[in-house]
């Protein structure tokens, strides 16, 4: 299905089924690889409406051991990363002891890239962001962080929080057998009201509107001989700043 834009310029998401963010798949994949190489177990945690259970099941089919879904009645404001991070932090605490939290560098839709860093603050964990490679040895995590033109190597003691970039791995497709087995894995659902418990973070961002970028064409037509029109075209492109003098 495709995304459409309504006449008013707002995106129409009705034809687009919701699915796991592609970068989140990278985070799930990396957690399963770490489990395969170093042992341990993987808990899948997400915040969403009850239909997000489908996404949790998909991650369980990939190899997660148990799922945890924070059910919200209405989707949090997509730009309100603080609330999302807060709910995730409370859910992580509730889910029990852990060594490592893996998340995506950002979501595929909004791509604000804020949940990871905020989550690390709520949980008081060292944050290792934009990571393309992870190694763990003797409770020390060593990561390669992708920067614009260089790679930085970071180390931290566990527990820690890592956000991954897409180049870290290629997420696996669960086999049909794994998909069937996933339906037997436990998924705990918890209402967001239980986690907020009167301590909700301040709402700092409210989305006022979302509209598609409207592109208008100038529709300029040059007439005359090829030589003359090409000169006019070059001149016009220069005056628009497309071509440099």
């Amino acid at each position, binding site marked *: 299905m495709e995304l459409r834009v309504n006449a008013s310029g707002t995106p129409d998401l009705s034809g687009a089924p919701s699915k796991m963010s592609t970068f989140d798949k990278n985070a799930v994949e990396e957690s399963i690889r770490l489990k395969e190489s170093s042992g341990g177990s993987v808990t899948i945690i997400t915040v969403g409406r009850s239909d997000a259970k489908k996404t949790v099941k998909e991650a369980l089919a990939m190899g997660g051991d148990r799922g945890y879904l924070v059910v919200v009645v209405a989707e949090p404001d997509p730009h309100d990363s603080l609330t999302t991070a807060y709910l995730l932090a409370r859910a992580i605490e509730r889910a029990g002891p852990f060594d490592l939290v893996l998340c995506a560098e950002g979501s595929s839709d909004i791509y604000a890239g804020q949940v990871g860093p905020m989550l690390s603050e709520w949980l008081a964990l060292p944050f290792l962001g934009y990571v393309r490679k992870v190694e763990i040895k003797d409770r020390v995590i060593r990561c390669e962080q992708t920067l614009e033109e260089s790679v930085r190597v970071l180390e931290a003691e566990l527990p820690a929080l890592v956000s991954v970039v897409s180049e870290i791995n290629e997420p696996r497709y*669960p086999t*049909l057998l794994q998909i*069937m087995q996933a339906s037997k894995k436990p998924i705990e659902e918890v209402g967001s009201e239980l986690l907020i418990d009167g301590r909700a973070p301040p709402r700092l961002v409210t989305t006022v509107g979302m509209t598609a970028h409207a592109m208008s064409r100038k529709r300029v037509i040059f007439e005359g001989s090829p030589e003359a029109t090409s000169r006019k075209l070059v001149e016009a492109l220069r005056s628009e700043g497309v071509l440099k003098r």
Partner: protein
Amino acid sequence: MPLFKPEHRQLLKMLHPAREEEVSDVLSGLAAFMEEKISPLSPKFDSLAEKITSARKSLLENGICLIPYPSRYGGLELPFSAYTLPGIISGKKLASFSLTEPASGSDAKAVRTKARRVGMEYVLNGTKMFITNAGEADLYFVLGATEKGPSSFIVEKSAPGLEFGEDLPKLGMRGSRTSELRLTDCRISAENLVGREGEGFEQVKTMLNSSRIVMGALCVGVAQVAYEKAVTYSKERRAFGGLISDFQLIREKIADMVTGISAARLLCLYASRLKEMGLEFSSEASQAKVFATETSVRVCDQAIQIFGGLGYTSEDVHRHWRDARLLTIGEGTSEVLRMLIASRELARSL
């Protein structure tokens, strides 16, 4: 285009209310895999730019063949059809069905390949024709005649005396290799006899009965893709100042195409449900195959018509028609199936 649609989920609710969620999960997972890993390659298989081998392997490893089989063979035990070896259903081995001969196709009883028992072995001699996966498969299910009549054998690719012909150029279905298979004093262990001597014809009938439903379902898929492409195009293509989807004659085609596809889909599901329930289904399986395959050819033909010149020249439109065209011939021609349907229906007491 998503392969697993809300209407499929509705159908599952109707057919398997108790296991709807489980079956939906498996099918939507399979659909996601197909959309991402297989569908983008299918035009390349058609143009011979890419070999199907690794895509087929990944599809088998994903577990597509496990769906109907019991868990004691490593299967998923989902409600659909059944029988075979763990090696085949897990995708570790590719199998091939070798029935047709240069002088006998539909008339399977006229098999000329001979099988002679010599000590603890059988010696096979004969030629098979139009064999799918010949030369690529690891195992060949071969029908040959013994003194007791048509009998089935499993011949391994490595068997001495087994040879394959050239890959035959085909109108469609170009992802698969199709060729001749020659057995010259081909020796196989007597253990590779399937069941008992003389049971071959009945075994083949049983297999074809089930595979006809699969052929029908395959056609529903081919028709659906061609139909969706044509509908999308009709909503973009303008003529005489309007979209062609607003013209009555195009609308008539669209209505007929989708009605045919829906009917074919339901007929296939009906036949498979009868089979699942352990009821007699051979007439319905044949009906499903005749109807779905012929519908598919017609729908794909109409899709070309809606696309006009672009349909005739664009491989990604006409390949569906070329693929569908095999299916009124392979695994029971429309003519033979009509004979079967009529004789079964005439034998029924009204």
